């Protein structure tokens, strides 16, 4: 049986001093191309508007060699929106890649795990219920902060309810779906009973939008995403064997309960950051890792490529929402329009197997 003459195609390694890793040219190429495409779309998104600016000027201004007029429009007015799109996209893409890998199921995304609806429900509650406590909460931590807390709380609730001597991917999804449904019902009830003026304000929390982002909004989201990405990068090496299941991972020396808890927490926080920066932008976290997986020809969602695909999708959707349609729509409407059919595609494909 043994002793074939065919040389096995074990992936070659690369060594740089003490650092060595598997050389995967295709994955590296795809990731670099995605990064380049994201940057181009980012600049394009900045250039488009009532006062159009050409792509070369945008790039020059970002590099600090632009004219003063352009600099004001670009850096002060348009940059926060584009950057918010980029950061939110990356956060959602990475979050989705982690949850899908942990649940070993392409349907597990933070949208489906209740985080987005949890944040939405809390935000709508605070907007529509005008009262002493609600106003105090909004004044102290801000609406975004409160929504973030709501999202994290819901994520934690789903995790605790799904825990039974470990986390099973399917149970996580089912519990997440039910908790989401409850949160959605609460939100609908709040909207029906609320004052019509509050409903308009609350609406912003039901469909994600990049309108009116300020540098302050973006800065917090940016630093949080960078910090969380660093944590994820640190744990990512221990994460690889988890794709093979808990028992195999344990056999390979991974303390999977710890690794998984840290990563799931990062995923929830990333989704929370995205929700607090742009509201619940649906489907990006679901679609981005699956697209990245197919582009990079990986069997599991690649983390960096998923983040970049998320950014690409979000900025692209925002651009479409602002330009291609007769009226300006919130970005969440466009992502839902793309994501819905994609979800159907995943379900049909899962059923065909």
């Amino acid at each position, binding site marked *: 049986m043994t002793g074939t003459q065919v040389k096995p195609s*074990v992936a070659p390694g690369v060594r740089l001093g003490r650092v060595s890793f*598997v050389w995967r040219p295709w994955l590296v190429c795809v990731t670099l191309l995605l990064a380049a495409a994201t940057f181009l779309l980012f600049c394009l998104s900045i250039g488009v508007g009532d006062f159009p600016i050409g792509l070369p000027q945008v790039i020059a201004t970002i590099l600090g060699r632009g004219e003063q007029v352009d600099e004001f429009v670009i850096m002060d007015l348009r940059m926060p929106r584009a950057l918010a799109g980029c950061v939110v996209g990356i956060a959602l893409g990475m979050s989705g890649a982690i949850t899908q890998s942990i649940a070993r199921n392409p349907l597990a995304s933070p949208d489906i795990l209740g985080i987005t609806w949890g944040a939405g429900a809390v935000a709508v509650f605070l907007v529509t219920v005008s009262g002493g406590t609600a106003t105090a909460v909004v004044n102290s931590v801000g609406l975004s902060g409160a929504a973030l807390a709501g999202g994290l709380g819901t994520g934690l609730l789903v995790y605790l309810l799904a825990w039974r001597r470990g986390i099973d991917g399917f149970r996580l999804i089912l519990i997440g779906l039910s908790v989401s449904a409850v949160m959605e019902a609460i939100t609908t009830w709040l909207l029906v009973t609320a004052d019509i003026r509050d409903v308009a304000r609350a609406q912003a929390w039901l469909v994600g939008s990049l309108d009116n982002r300020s540098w302050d909004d973006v800065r917090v989201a940016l630093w949080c995403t960078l910090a969380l990405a660093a944590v994820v990068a640190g744990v990512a090496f221990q994460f690889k064997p988890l794709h093979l299941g808990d028992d195999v991972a344990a*056999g390979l020396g991974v303390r999977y309960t710890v690794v998984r808890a840290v990563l799931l927490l990062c995923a929830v926080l990333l989704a929370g950051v995205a929700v607090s920066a742009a509201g619940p932008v649906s489907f990006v976290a679901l679609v981005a890792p699956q697209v990245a997986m197919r582009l990079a020809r990986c069997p599991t969602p690649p983390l960096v490529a998923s983040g970049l695909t998320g950014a690409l999708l979000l900025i692209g959707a925002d651009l479409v929402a602002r330009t291609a349609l007769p009226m300006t729509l919130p970005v969440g409407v466009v992502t839902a329009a793309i994501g819905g059919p994609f979800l159907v595609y995943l379900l049909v494909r899962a059923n065909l197997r």
Partner: protein
Amino acid sequence: MAVEYVAGSAAGGGDTARLAARGVTVGYGGRVVIDDLDVVVPPRVITTIIGSNGCGKSTLLRTLSRLLKPTRGTVVLDGEDIAGLRTRDVARKLGLLPQAPVAPEGLTVADLVARGRHPHQSWLRQWSSDDAAVVERALAMTGVSDLADRPVDALSGGQRQRVWISMTLAQGTDLLLLDEPTTYLDLAHAIDVLDLVDDLHESGCTVVLVLHDLNLATRYSDNLIVMKAGSILAQGHPRDVITAELLHEAFGLRAKVIDDPVGDRPLIVPIGRAHVRPDQLDKDTVQVRLG
């Protein structure tokens, strides 16, 4: 009818044992599956755990490999309490293949086997030429080198099991615990996989198996551990252990034990109700010492 079975010579040697359980009690939730069990895995032989469904075979294997933490007692690996070792250090000494593992769709054979190197890698040192050499050897030893580029999910059951064993080999341990490696395989492929396991044993590995097929267990192992309801009923060489009485006690199975026409081990011929000659249907068959 409490029959005392004496452990065979293969099970001896307390201090030379690679792996041993001392007074372990294991349970899920409040239910005790294994109660105060002692077992020694002798070095450089194939030890197989057999027993009826739900008797605690897999639980014992999982406890020995530290997947399950005993509520009482200790598991000793190379003279050290396994609970006190780092997970990574355990993985460098002991290779484990769980029951029916599933690979992500599209993962190639070479990539799966390469994951076996994980205990020897670190964040900075994720892949080296040593790793590549070990993986190539593991692929060659299991005869799956020419499948290296194929996705694991596209392989047949037998090939897939070889690939998983190859991953366990890439871990570079000489102590292998395989939980039902022949489940879902037809007889030809099961034999194929067990021949491979025997090659590993010949090359100096200590192997612990859980098997369902009694005749395969008898043929391939030098040391049998027969379990019933969470404790060990008998342990030793198949020739010393396998008797009609034991099979009846451990499995409630009426069987005739004869000499294996092609080997030097006993062969178990089960007696059901259908298509058995009337003279063999005698209720007292089991009371008569056979073989």
